[in-house]
């Protein structure tokens, strides 16, 4: 069995808003204010195998982007470890750390916000490989031309600035910049969300070509279940900082086990579902400042039992590579089998 390329072990990220000066003065008078803590990511375990595409789905505020950023090394986890090829990134020797950092690259949603508007494409794409000694300064032009060709851009455009491109082309520049340092893993954070459907299809096809040609591994963060279903081998569903279901893509979409996944899939508009009555999952996502006790989903869940209010539900195996953090559905499943 092959070893995972990226291992996420018990990773949490907490953002703390400290009591400000006015609050501290109020506390002297006995106001009893305390720090506000958001558990953006709460004890997540995930192993990504070389060459696979893992889709990370969930709604706004579920912590999927934060998790993606921690994997890409942009943000350190508050707790837990992220390992690259088995080694903890946080405690690596400097040389190894640099290698790991270059090997995991990130592609952002809004290329206009992540490309420097004052730099020409040649500098944007060519800067990092020169700095890291992958290519000499003299060879930069040729190297950038080769990288641009790979993502389907004409090398003649390398003298232009980001604002001179359309949205789809800018997305390609963002991909070229990430590819320029010869990564092994790409973290794509809503990389196609801002694009028109026909352009989105072009970029998704590009991702699949690159995967085949360069043997890349993807962590594909998206709120769009249709896109994830199309591209991912395995899917992790997040709700309020926790992974509630993890399974091969076919299994998630054919036999979702967690009530949240089930609800999410029912709501997805599909081309083949005509003139349907939309139903509504009750309520909204609770504030991550004050998540419900026990299973975070229980106040909205149609299957919730009193046991769901106590203690975090553990991930249980319900099928081949299929785990879910629900106390109710696995029991229903085994009752049906028996």
């Amino acid at each position, binding site marked *: 069995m092959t070893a995972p390329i990226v291992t996420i072990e018990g990773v949490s990220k907490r953002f703390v808003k400290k009591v400000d000066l006015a609050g501290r003065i109020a506390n002297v008078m006995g106001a009893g204010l305390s720090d506000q803590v958001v558990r953006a990511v709460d004890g997540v375990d995930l192993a990504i195998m070389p060459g696979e595409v893992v889709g990370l789905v969930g*709604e*706004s505020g579920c912590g999927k982007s934060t998790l993606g950023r921690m994997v890409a090394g942009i943000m350190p986890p508050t707790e837990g470890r992220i390992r690259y090829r088995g080694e903890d990134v946080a405690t690596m020797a400097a040389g190894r750390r640099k290698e790991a950092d270059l090997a995991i690259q990130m592609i952002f949603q809004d290329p206009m916000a992540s490309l420097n508007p004052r730099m020409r494409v040649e500098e944007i794409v060519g800067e990092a490989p020169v700095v890291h000694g992958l290519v000499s300064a003299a060879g930069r032009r040729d190297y950038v031309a080769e990288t641009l060709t790979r993502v389907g851009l004409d090398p003649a455009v390398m003298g232009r600035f980001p604002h001179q491109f*359309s*949205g*789809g082309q800018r997305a390609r520049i963002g991909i070229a910049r990430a590819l320029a340092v010869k990564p092994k893993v790409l973290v794509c954070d809503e990389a196609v969300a801002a694009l*028109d*459907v*026909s*352009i*989105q*299809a*072009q970029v*998704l*096809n590009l991702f*699949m070509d690159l995967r085949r040609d360069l043997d890349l591994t993807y962590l594909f963060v998206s*709120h769009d*279940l*249709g*896109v994830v*279903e*199309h*591209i991912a081998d395995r899917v992790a569903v997040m709700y309020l900082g926790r992974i509630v279901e993890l399974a091969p*893509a*076919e299994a998630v*979409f054919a036999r979702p086990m967690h009530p949240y996944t089930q*609800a*999410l899939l*029912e*709501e*997805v*508009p*599909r*081309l*083949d*579902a*005509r*003139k*349907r*009555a*939309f*139903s*509504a*999952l009750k309520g*909204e*996502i609770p504030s991550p400042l004050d998540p419900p006790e026990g299973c975070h989903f229980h106040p909205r869940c149609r299957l919730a039992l009193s046991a769901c209010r106590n203690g975090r539900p553990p991930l249980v195996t319900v099928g081949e590579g299929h785990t879910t953090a629900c106390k109710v559905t696995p029991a229903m499943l085994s009752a049906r089998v028996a």
Partner: protein
Amino acid sequence: MTAVLDISDLAVTFSTRDGLVKAVDGVTLSVARGEVLGLVGESGSGKSVTGLAVLGLIDAPGRIAAGSIRFQGRELVGLSEAELRKLRGRHVAMIFQDPMTTLNPVLRVDTQMIEAIQAHEKVSDKAARDRAAQALTKVGIPSPQERLNSYPHQFSGGMRQRVAIAIALLHGPAVLVADEPTTALDVTIQAQILAEVQQLCSEMGTALIWITHDLAVVAGLADRIAVMYAGRIVEEGPVDAVLDAPRHPYTAGLIGSVPSRNRRGERLAQIPGMTPSLARLPEGCSFGPRCPRVQADCRVAQPSPTEGAGGRRWRCVHPVVDEPVPA
């Protein structure tokens, strides 16, 4: 069915530095009472401008250059601002993508809703407030009396969009134009809003024009669909007919671009190239340069609409005939 709204040969132009741009060029559309029309297109196709034109909201440098918009038989193009104000919000209403376009951030929700009611009807503050509370209840906002005292920033995104919808529906308009109202929302919230709108429109018989780039939403919601490309409607017809057997190659391309269960892992049928600039449209059919079926005669003139069976229309010289898209 008689049409509540009848748009014919509508043209909207904007004068820009690059010359006169035809954002909408010869659009003909109609919606009947209680009907849901999905107006689909990509960025810059002119779908939003069409919606704004219905409300008389085209401002300089844009203007309605030609065509007519008839609401219950009455011509809207050329009406004075005062006359338009009497219609807007009462008989014809709009929901925008960003609810903060509708809501004033410095006024409480009750102030804004009471104002919207009293703009068209002489009622007391008390009665107007009660009606506002009822409207909030209808769109599924819990404890409406308390929520009326809140400011827009105290609502979540989904809740704000509901308030905007409640305001749009206050007077039970005959026509509602919804411009991508769920695009910025999460799927579960989107489904809640779609459910509310569906129910409200069927109860009140409102004709709904739902503008979106998302074919899947239209598939689930609309009775008829109109696909726009570069300012023109390239295909129109009942949802099932258009999605199952598109005639225009652009519609077929859009359907092929949607990632779905049945095409897992396969390449998506992408449309090459990108949307042309409206200031420099290609000769003949605007879709020609991106079209897989293009032939020499496509470059001669803009194709005129062909009428098909079952109320279908398309603008294509070489339509897709016997090739239904793979499901």
